[in-house]
């Protein structure tokens, strides 16, 4: 075999064929598993695309670099589950572009922070974390109290649809209206945005008369990890 190897290495034709075969095998090994990638996403109910306001809040989350200190993935370990709640599922971030799993935890994991604190707490904590958590080293984000620019929100949803987030035509057409309604609507009156995006957190967190960046970010934080109702999920069905 080793004798023939010299021939293989010194003949340009055989060498080229050998290289091609190597690349083909290596490529298949990497590509073929992706054909069944869908099977890695658990089949659970409740995960929906982000509402326009939440999506804007997500953009702010990324713009401000929250992911530098906060992960959004509860790993399947005992201590994490005890502290943060049910471990994160792949299905829960299937509409995230890009996902915010992360591994850097200067602050706590935020995968299930939705509903854990009140809007008032979130706003005060974001304005000056030391006001509510004396030992915190998180910077303040007071500037988020400025008005939110959401002129392009319909285009945002449209772009996300291109990469596979199933926004409907109606959702894209109503994007602006839904965004405003999520801030200024009355939760008791069951506004349309709540029907279109179940469990959307309705209300003005900052209490300003315009939609602020704070409202968007808090709406996003308040929906994190709340979409799946784990009391209806069988543990065997999501085991991997």
């Amino acid at each position: 075999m080793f004798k023939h190897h010299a021939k293989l290495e010194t003949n340009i034709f055989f060498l080229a064929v050998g290289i091609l075969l190597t690349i083909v095998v290596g490529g298949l090994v990497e590509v073929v598993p992706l054909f069944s990638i869908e099977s890695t996403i658990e089949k659970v109910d409740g995960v929906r695309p982000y509402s326009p306001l939440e999506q804007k809040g997500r953009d702010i989350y990324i713009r401000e670099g929250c992911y530098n200190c906060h992960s959004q993935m509860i790993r399947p370990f005992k201590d994490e589950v005890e502290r943060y709640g049910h471990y994160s599922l792949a299905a829960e971030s299937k509409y995230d572009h890009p996902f915010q799993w992360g591994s850097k935890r200067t602050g706590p994991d935020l995968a299930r922070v939705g509903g854990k604190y009140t809007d008032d707490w979130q706003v005060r904590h974001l304005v000056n974390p030391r006001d509510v958590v004396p030992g915190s080293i998180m910077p303040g984000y007071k500037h988020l109290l400025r008005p939110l620019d959401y002129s392009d929100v319909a285009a945002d949803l449209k772009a996300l649809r291109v990469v596979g987030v199933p926004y409907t035509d109606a959702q894209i057409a109503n994007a602006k209206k839904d965004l405003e309604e999520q801030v200024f609507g009355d939760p008791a009156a069951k506004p349309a945005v709540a029907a279109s995006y179940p469990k959307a957190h309705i209300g003005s967190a900052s209490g300003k008369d315009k939609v602020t960046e704070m409202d968007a970010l808090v709406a996003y934080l308040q929906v994190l990890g709340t979409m799946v109702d784990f009391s209806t999920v069988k543990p065997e069905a999501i085991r991997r």
Partner: protein
Amino acid sequence: MATIEKDSVSGQNTTGHEWDGIKELNTPLPKWWVYVFWATVLWAIGYWVAYPAWPLVNGYTKGTFGYSSRGELDNELAAQKKARSAWLSKIEASDVAAVEKDKDLLRYAMAGGKIAFNENCAPCHGVGGVGAFGYPSLADDEWLWGGALADIEQTIKFGVRNTNANARASEMPKFGADGLLKPEQITAVSDYVVSLASKAPAKGSAGETVYAENCAVCHADDGAGNKDLGAPALNNQIWLYKGTKDAIAAQIAKPKHGAMPAWSERLDASTVKMLAVYVHNLGGGK
């Protein structure tokens, strides 16, 4: 072309390559290394069989051990639950009052309650329940919704002013913003509340009349408050949003309302009970 020769010093063959008179020995790999290499290859094959390994068209090979990291977690959690069940099942079966009476259960609940409190409650109420601006202290004997054990459990379970159907809810009217009181009336009644708080109510003042007509129905004539309505006492120096005249006037004009999540939606029943016992024993329990 390469000529392989025997090296006279080491007795090994050379590779036949030569660079400027320097030749390379073709020393075989050490035996131990070769054996370890083949052992790891065999180990890998065993691993493929025993553990999840190969992707298939629909799914993947599960392995003879049936291992999954999430399954392992489920087992660990089940084992932990079993280890704790000696205590937790008792706490779950008995009501909070019984937990507090049983010395051992109380000790367990205080330890478990402290951990849950520091993770879930301390961000607002502070470590040890000291409270903060807008978030009531849980370590004193002044309570918004009642300081009896059952009241505390109810508040933790369903929260305050949230979307839970059983949440405690009440709303003070916007006396200023909705024009229910004139600005001078608000000033007068703020003065009266300041006097009420220092235990020297200004009898016969204009503020007293405004108070009696608008505020007393919830906060009581003597300012003792009403725990059923979550109306705080005004006859002491404990304030949720500061006790200066300006702060009181602002609260009358356009009140701020605190809120609290319904913790039964996030925590299990025994944790809520342990929290209730812990909070009740922070210092101010009734």
